């Protein structure tokens, strides 16, 4: 019985994938419930059911909608822009050796700077509102895309390029028919990481400088010790993260089915 369940879960189908997600969320809920029965201080931890009630309340009074639309608009716009910028910088680095040698170290230095910590500075520069969120999210999300784009473009199998050249392909044709398609699944894996980083970026930006959004809601709820509401919004962010991860993983697999075998 247990063995058949394992075999089913290992399958590469949508039902099996959905079942895996359900089982792991179920497990988290069970552990959460047990821990909240031991830790009875409701300022520290509330059981899942209370969080669900708090979430339902947020939906009913419209706060959920206001916060969700603020966060989703800001994060999606800046995420899309960071992917575009990231791919462009990655392309530039992969196509120019000089640029890669001179710009590469600057980029990796920037990448290791905790940009999140500079959030208050950005808000001082750009004010409260969309602009500071936009810039902060781009700065944290752009690097994984830059790195994977450059790596993917450089990783192309040499024999594939040689074969294209042998058929008299122009440099542009080599790019569109060999190098770019080869790099695409790499880029998508960078995009997947960028999405997770963008979510962290948006929450921090909203902590410091906004009057709507999940980050703002989490901060204001924690200031009033409303733990149920804090956890409710954290769960919303988790769901967004999971959704992006599943989506981009599926895209990656679809773009490069030959890598699975």
């Amino acid at each position, binding site marked *: 019985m247990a063995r058949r369940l394992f075999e089913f879960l290992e399958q590469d189908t949508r039902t099996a994938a959905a079942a895996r997600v359900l089982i792991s969320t179920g497990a988290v809920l069970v552990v959460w419930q047990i821990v909240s029965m031991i830790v009875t201080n409701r300022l520290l931890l509330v059981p899942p059911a209370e969080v669900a009630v708090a979430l339902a309340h947020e939906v009913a009074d419209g706060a959920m909608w206001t916060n969700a639309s603020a966060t989703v608009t800001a994060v999606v716009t800046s995420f899309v822009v960071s992917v575009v910028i990231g791919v462009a910088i990655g392309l530039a680095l992969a196509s120019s050796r000089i640029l890669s040698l001179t710009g590469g170290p600057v980029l990796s230095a920037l990448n290791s700077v905790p940009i999140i910590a500079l959030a208050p500075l950005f808000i001082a520069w750009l004010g409260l509102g969309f602009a500071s969120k936009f810039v902060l999210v781009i700065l944290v999300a752009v690097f994984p895309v830059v790195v994977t784009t450059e790596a993917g473009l450089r990783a192309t*199998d040499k024999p*594939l390029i040689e074969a294209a050249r*042998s*058929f*008299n*392909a122009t440099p542009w044709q080599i790019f569109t028919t060999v190098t770019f*398609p080869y790099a695409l699944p790499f880029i998508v894996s960078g995009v997947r990481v960028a999405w997770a980083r963008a979510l962290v970026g948006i929450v921090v930006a909203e902590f410091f400088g906004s009057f709507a959004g999940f980050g703002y809601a989490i901060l204001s709820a924690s200031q009033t010790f409303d733990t149920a509401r804090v956890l409710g919004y954290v769960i919303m962010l988790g769901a967004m993260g999971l959704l992006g991860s599943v989506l981009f993983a599926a895209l990656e697999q679809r773009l*490069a089915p*030959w890598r699975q075998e």
Partner: protein
Amino acid sequence: MTEAVRLAVDGIGKTFERRGKPPVEALRDIRMTIREGEFVSIVGASGSGKSTLLRIIDGLIAPSAGVVRVDGRPVSKPGRDRAMVFQQDSLLPWKTVAENVAYGLTLAKVPKAEAFATAQKFIDIAGLKGFEQHYPHQLSGGMRQRVNVARALAVDPEILLLDEPFAALDAQTREIMQTELLSIWQATGKTVLLITHQIDEAVFLSDRVIVFSARPGTIRREIPVPLPRPRDLELKRSAEFVSLVDTIWKLIEAEVRAGLKEE
């Protein structure tokens, strides 16, 4: 054999410059001609520069000295009069068999319908019928090399260049592929230049075998193969065949052994 000279290799030499190390002379003064419709093989120990010569003929690498001519015209870059079949997997993994076979034609901006019609013809010739919509990773090594051959033939080259095309295949598959290559050659009448380290493969397929010496690569000897055609695998057991293979082996044996010690 009174046909015109299709490929002329005239005094080709190649020296690779290396940063911080002495340059390596890979080829020295290679001279040979191949007539229209002829099947010629080059054998030699590893390091004899035979693969480099093939790339120079294809136009992928520029020679340091000499000139390659196809039908009298000097070669400076790849062109549709030559097509290469590579040793490694050089098929595009995200394209189907049909798209891969049509690849050279689409690069040359042949209209899609025409490209796929032509591709289909060579898919049939290469025994790939029914696999048009498969992806390379769904095929065996032998099937993938058939796609490779079909892709090269689809651009209708005058000269087919093969770079150890069956080296990665197991011995049985290799023998089958050799007989298939022979029948494709007979059906299409292409001029073929094959690079191989399998002496029996060279003798079985060719009208002439050119034996290279190593470091730098030079032509050591040209050996005509007067065996009757059409040939089948039975031929490999005949005394004449065995003695030809033996002659060639003796020509390169010392260098193969020297190469073993170096590595």
